[in-house]
């Protein structure tokens, strides 16, 4: 069971490494969007410090959305997806592998970049720590839930925007607990409660989302 | 009866805009929605009838050759 997931992760990572430009553009998108907010609301440090958790988290959501359409589209195009669906192993495991691979090239880099960008907003050391932790904990859920959206909208016109419409409402709890954790840490209340809930969401998402996405893939491939 | 006069009823204690803005939009929706659905059904029927006639004309046209 584990070997299937590992094999899918290895394959997807190898393919992603051949298209590094896609990964890097999403990260630059993250950087640019985060920089837009101070330009929009003014450079006053107190305001920016207050906005930082929300801004960084929303930008992370949007950056994740950018890379989601590619989750299944490339495999659909070259026929691999149909082969994977016909193969004897459970499609849910295959999707889990793809979601993990997606997180490794999308969520993980965001978690690395986030504290650096957090410095632009003058977040305290505690805030930066919790920010990194929350993005590390929350982005797997984003990849998982996003996989459902990517599977449902496979091959449809209006793809990326439609995908965002479907998935962003479902991202709201992750956003609330993620940004809330940083906020709580910065105001001295401690982010543990939020982070625990975030961890619970991620576990639930990784446990259930791949199977929902697999069902959606079967519907799309019929 | 709660109101002293029709004018009082319309005025809604000063909240007329808000109250009638709410009830008004509700009434608008509950009239417009069924109307639009009924119209859509009539249009669909008309379209399907036209298609049926076109198909039967094609069929009879082909069979006469």
């Amino acid at each position, binding site marked *: 069971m584990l070997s299937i997931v590992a094999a899918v992760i290895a394959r997807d990572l190898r393919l992603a490494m051949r298209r590094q430009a896609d990964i890097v553009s999403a990260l630059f998108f993250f950087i640019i969007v985060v920089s837009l907010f101070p330009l929009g609301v003014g450079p006053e440090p107190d305001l920016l410090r207050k906005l930082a958790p929300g801004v960084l988290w929303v930008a992370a959501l949007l950056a994740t959305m950018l890379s989601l359409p590619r989750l299944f589209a490339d495999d659909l195009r070259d026929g691999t997806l149909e082969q994977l669906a016909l193969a004897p192993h459970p499609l849910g495991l295959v999707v889990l592998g793809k979601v993990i691979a997606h997180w490794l090239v999308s969520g993980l880099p965001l978690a690395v970049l986030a504290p650096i960008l957090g410095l632009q907003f003058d977040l305290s050391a505690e805030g930066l720590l919790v920010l990194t932790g929350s993005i590390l904990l929350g982005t797997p859920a984003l990849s998982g839930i996003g996989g*459902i959206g990517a599977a*449902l*909208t496979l091959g*449809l*016109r*209006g793809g990326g925007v*439609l995908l965002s*419409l*479907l998935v*962003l*409402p*479902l991202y*709201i*709890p992750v956003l*609330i*607990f993620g940004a*809330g954790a940083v906020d*709580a840490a910065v105001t001295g209340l401690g982010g543990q409660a939020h982070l625990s*809930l975030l961890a619970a*969401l991620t576990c639930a998402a990784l446990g259930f989302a791949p199977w*929902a996405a697999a*069902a*959606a893939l079967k*519907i*799309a491939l*019929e | *009866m*709660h*109101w002293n006069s029709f004018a009082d*009823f319309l005025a*809604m*204690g*000063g*909240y007329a805009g*808000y*109250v009638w*803005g*709410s*009830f008004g*939009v*509700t009434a608008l*929706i*509950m009239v417009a*929605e*069924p109307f639009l*659905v*009924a119209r*859509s*059904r*009539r249009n*669909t*029927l008309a379209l*399907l*009838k036209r*298609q*049926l006639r076109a198909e039967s004309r094609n069929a009879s046209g082909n069979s006469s050759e």
Partner: protein
Amino acid sequence: MNDRFNLYRFAAPATFYPLAGTLVPYFAAVSAVFGIAGLWLGLFVAPTDFQQGEGYRIIFIHVPASWMSMFIYLVMAFWAAIGLAFNTRLSGMMAQALAPTGALMAFLSLWTGALWGKPMWGAWWVWDARLTSELILLFLYIGYLALVAAIDDPRRADKAGGLLLLVGVVNVPIIYFSVKWWNTLHQGASVSLTKSPTMASTMLWGMLLMALCFWMYSIAVALMRVRTIMLERERQTDWVKALLAAGEK
């Protein structure tokens, strides 16, 4: 087995079409009766609220619309589950027929919420937990409508939309809980739009009657809409062709 009336006949569009057509006027009439009774209680009998004056009467629309928007979503999810489990065509059609009405109810809830909030709390929008959840519910409706509109194949649209509804219905409690959490942490005083320690019984009855009115209305409109959907989807079948030949209006 003819001694038992077989309800499953009506799962076939050919039999359900005429049944739906017969039922619509009855549901419309019942809705009108409940509406008149509810409006009578709400606009003429219910007393003035001590704190909110006459402006509170908006709850006779706001609360029923909120209830219906949530209830319709649940019913849609129910039909989605049936459709995915038993592969029935009519379930998918019912879910699609209900969606626009549900979305309108959600919109109405938000609209009346704003009109209620402005005189009461001074702002057209407050990030109260319930209003925010209602907004997210509207987003869920729009997502569903957008998805089924984007898929050309009706069966794929039914199934994909159905799966989205099931995912959505599971997420609604999570979303509501997280929004409540968010709201209580960010706002000291809880700005609740329906917080009233005791509600006069006429007010409660007024809300219930209006809710029943909206419920019967929704059923009537959904039955109307599903007939159009059936005609479009089943256009190649004999029963539709027979209907058209018989001069269906």
